């Protein structure tokens, strides 16, 4: 079942069309990537989902019903432009933001305590935000995004502001949230950074969704039939075993006592043809198909339009 569904959503700012009939679905319990270059319309899409702005046309469905104001309590949003009140205490501020999400004071205190201890920041409760380092503030920010146990978590450019240690922490926490049943939307222009995490994606370019669906399906569809072969033995015999009408040798590099070769198949591979051709000539150490990265797919799709 889908937790979120966008149906022909359009948004204009004056003459500028920010979103043009955008449609996609986000399956419940999955990690969804909203990918595209800067200015493609990702943040506008997220703002529409968060009801910060309203679409001009089209509909958004959340948990099967049309999006309504009470739904914000079930969403957690970490915007790309994020910050906290500098002069306010950390705990006091987290409490305030949690209450704005609809938690009662006692509930909020209980959950904040849990999260502050989990992320080992309990000692910061009485500090002012201006006394925190940027990395510390990011942890607080993350807590305020997840404290109300949202069913849908939305992260806009999540890793851009985080240092590597916090980024790793963020990644692990997000995976744990997913295992606990939450649905997660990532939005980023750095497509390769999240593809390993994502179950499904939508590629967005110039206000339009140009590709969406399951990551594995998409990768299979756009794969180039390129294989990486690591072998030891005679280079000559390896070259000789490849029939030029079926195979194209892209590169061949010696690597210590081995060779690493990239081979593209000219037709559709059906029955391990490449392996069969070389297996009697050289000693095969490893063999794998190279699947395209999301940015390559993106470029190919953009060119193809």
């Amino acid at each position, binding site marked *: 079942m889908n937790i979120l569904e966008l149906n022909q959503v359009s948004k204009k700012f004056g003459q500028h069309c920010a979103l043009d009939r955008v449609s996609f679905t986000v399956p419940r319990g999955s990690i969804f990537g909203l990918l595209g270059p800067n200015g493609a319309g990702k943040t506008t899409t997220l703002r529409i989902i968060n009801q910060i702005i309203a679409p001009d046309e089209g509909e958004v469905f959340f948990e099967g019903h049309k999006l309504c104001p009470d739904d914000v309590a079930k969403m957690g949003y970490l915007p790309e432009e*994020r910050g906290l009140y500098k002069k306010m205490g950390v705990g006091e501020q987290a409490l305030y*933001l949690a209450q704005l999400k609809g938690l009662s004071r006692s509930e909020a205190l209980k959950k904040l305590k849990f999260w502050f201890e989990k992320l080992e920041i309990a000692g910061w409760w009485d500090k002012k935000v201006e006394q925190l380092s940027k990395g510390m503030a990011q942890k607080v920010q993350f807590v305020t995004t997840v404290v109300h146990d949202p069913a849908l978590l939305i992260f806009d450019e999540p890793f851009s502001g985080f240092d590597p240690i916090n980024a790793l922490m963020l990644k692990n926490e997000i995976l744990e949230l997913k295992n606990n049943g939450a649905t997660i939307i990532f939005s980023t222009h750095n497509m390769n950074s999240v593809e390993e995490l994502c179950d499904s994606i939508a590629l967005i370019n110039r206000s339009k969704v140009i590709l969406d669906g399951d990551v594995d399906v998409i990768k299979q569809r756009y794969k180039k039939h390129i294989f990486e072969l690591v072998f030891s033995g005679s280079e000559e015999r390896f070259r000789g075993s490849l029939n030029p009408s079926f195979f194209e040798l892209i590169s061949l590099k010696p690597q210590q006592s081995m060779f690493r070769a990239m081979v593209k198949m000219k037709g559709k591979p059906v029955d391990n043809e490449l392996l069969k051709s070389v297996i009697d000539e050289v000693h095969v150490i490893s063999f794998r198909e190279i699947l395209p990265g999301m940015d390559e797919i993106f470029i190919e799709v953009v060119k193809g339009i």
Partner: protein
Amino acid sequence: MKKIKYIIQREFLTRIQRKSFWVMALLGPFLIASVIILPIYFSTLEDKEVKVIAVVDSSRVFVDRIPDTQNLKFRYVENVNIARFIKNFQEEGYWGVLFISHVVTYSPNSVILYSHGQAGLTVKYHIENALKKEIEHRILAANGIEDLNKTLEALKANVNLRMIKLDEKGNQKESNTILAMIVGYASGFLIYLFIFLFGSQVMRGVIEEKANRIIEVIVSSVRPFELMMGKILGVAGVALVQFILWIVITFSLVSAGRALFFPEISRANSEEVIIHSNSGKTVNEFSQLPQNESELKATAVFEAIKNIDFFVILSSFLFFFLGGYLLYGALFAAIGSLADNEADTQQYMLPVTIPLILAIYVMINTINNPDSALSFWFSIIPLTSPIVMMVRIPFGVPYWEVALSMILLIAAFVFFTWFSAKIYRTAILMYGKQVSYKEIWKWFKYS
């Protein structure tokens, strides 16, 4: 809308907890109290020292004509060399030397006061007046007016105008213009001050949220309108608390200061209060039978104070204070949302500052002429009415005018809040762009 209470709470508490709030709460009354107390105090301190001034009158017109006062004594010296005397008058025990040349009657610049210390204005005016009077005397005498002294005595007419205002039913009310002026001016100015002070707090709060980039986090939880209204109402609470603190602290400071500096006055006052509270008749008896001049004056002041309806003034002050603040607060919020930092607000401030400054100009006119057409219109038009109407009320304004002004103020508040909310919700998410008025109008039409 239930979340708005958290916003109001936060806006209120964070501001109340700031040091600057308490500094203002204490400093404001100190300023007001010192404006009331200090001049009176200084006037009693002044000129305890007796100054003896030697008068060298080469015209011989003014001998014994300059009267002594408590602090100024004039001694006439004759047969001195003025040039030498100027050098050593201090050794002979004089504070200064007044030199009157013999051409004084036709050359006004020929009177000079030499002294080592700076002579105050009172000294200057005292001498000038005495000399002027004597010269006038002489001119009148020279023109042959008979019975000079009698005529002059008759010239000293003394008029003390008592003003009695009639209301529609013909009831008499003794009014004191000075008192109405002070109350009107103080309330009008206080409203002006608070609109600016707390309106800009709203503006700074909006800019802070934008600059901190927390705005997007918050508007993903609450509607922009709730955030804006929450902020305006929270700051309104701060303004009210500040105002009440000012009143309470000012009153205690003034009474403490009075007891400290002028124990006699405060004793006398409290006795008077007792008389009035014991029998309301006392005042009427006084007013019917004014026995002497000073009693007459005192009667007038007390009648006027009694006739100022403090309940009406206080409740209308609160209404116009809140109404004016809410109206401008919404505009200040919209301005804040258009800017990325405080410096950027300048260009949008003008349309908001102009009506406020205009109101202050009209206020000065209104104090002199509370029923003029200018005062009437500016006390009806909502952008200036909170200030101008408050100045008029102590003088007495027909009820329908106050009611009309209030209704228009409420209508304007609703309109400006709606208008500001439209700008606000678009502008808070925009960065790094100077928005033109044309563009604002466009959003307004489309959103």
